[in-house]
């Protein structure tokens, strides 16, 4: 089980969290302009790196807030992004 660092509550058991997948996937700025291929990208395509992944977690059984970490998908080593930007985005 991973120990995941919530920026607000500190390190907590993985069972308290809900996984949100790739970070920084934002809703298309101009949805009316989007081609089918771009819609497909937005809806279905996510990065799937072997190595460092920037991803979202929700502290569902805790403060219920979303945050972003970087994690190595081969070792589960977590690099907390504790910049102000990481906490607020």
């Amino acid at each position, binding site marked *: 089980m*991973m120990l995941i660092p919530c920026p607000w509550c500190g390190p907590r058991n993985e069972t308290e969290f809900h996984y949100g997948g790739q970070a920084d996937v934002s809703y298309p700025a101009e949805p009316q302009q989007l081609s089918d291929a771009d819609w497909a990208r937005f*809806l279905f395509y996510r990065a*799937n790196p072997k190595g460092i992944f920037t991803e979202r977690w929700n502290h569902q059984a805790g403060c219920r807030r979303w945050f972003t970490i970087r994690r190595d998908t081969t070792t589960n080593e977590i690099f907390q992004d504790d910049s102000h930007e990481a906490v607020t985005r």
Partner: protein
Amino acid sequence: MPRTPGADLPDHPDWLWNSPEPKRSYDVVIVGGGGHGLATAYYLAVNHGITNMAVLESGWLAGGNMARNTTIIRSNYLWDESAGLYEHAMKLWEGLEDELDYPLLFSQRGVLNLAHSLQDVRDSKRRVGANRLNGIDAEWLDADQVAEICPILNTSEDLRYPVLGATWQPRAGIAKHDHVAWGFARALDRMGVDLVQNCQVTGFDRIGDRITGVRTTRGDIAAGKVALAAAGSTSVLTDELGLALPIQSHPLQALVSELLEPVHPTVVMSNAVHVYVSQAHKGELVLGAGIDSYNSYGQRGAFHTIERELTAAVELFPMFSRAHVLRTWAGVVDVTPDASAIMGLTPFENLYVNCGWGTGGFKATPGVGWCYAHTIAHDEPHPLNAPFNLDRFTTGALVDEHGAAGVAH
């Protein structure tokens, strides 16, 4: 002369296949020596006469998901597209032992897919109807009929999620995964196909959008055609080409108990309470459940996932509370947004992709081999895998099997 005790071992039995040095060029190179890569090579040779071919495997033969799956074979999927492909595989399974002349321990002991809520019951009956229209054996059983088939299952009403009934596919079952791989490998070796282990593909040679070969840890190899069969590691390969795929790699765990007397006569799957169980020929209870939530290439998952599946297992099978977990492990499964596979052409000439089988591709192994071989040989999908093209994520013609695949496959 003093002898080391135990040193006088008999000779190693004959190898089922050789481990040749890779040649510098082949008509077809298959990337990944799991079940799908081996079956594809087999049908390329047998159905299409292609034998100047290599299967390149980064580790040891069939040591990926092929060695780690819980071997459930069934074809009772909801949609016509899936029914076509999985039922084709089922028919091939039914003749495969004879065809490969190798014991696969293919045992058609049936599968029960349990229903625990009114919605489950409605969905299950609908699936039984769809299956029958597609010529697939399927029945709806009430709780008493379920108890007759699997007496060790707790069908009493006082469960948190009582068993309200189940779908029953008598032709479903299990097979011995390793034997399946070895049977294909032996046949391929006899036909002169090179099975190259410890050979990782690290990139591609290309002229524009035409693939001309692969780069490997054992040198560059030219290829007329390159077919990917790398399961959970497919993104790592296609990232080299800037080709994005809608797959996410996750850990999927399984476990076995110690060897027990035969107690479990069939295969039981429950999507709602999240567990599936069969008993292997040797006697272990074989259990699996859902993926761990996060992306990972680590071939390991968390213990709480196992704890949850055992909770469900003990609730359904009270006698399992006396069994012990002997071994747990994980594979890396490539999950798609619609819980269906991707098999077909790519934007690159001479490059073919088969991936996205996620938690349920073992049962499809011979069907994948058959259809993927056709796709590669004719540069055009077989009608059975045509719906599983990459374009469906753009056109919206998804094959949504979350209902029939759900947790488990």
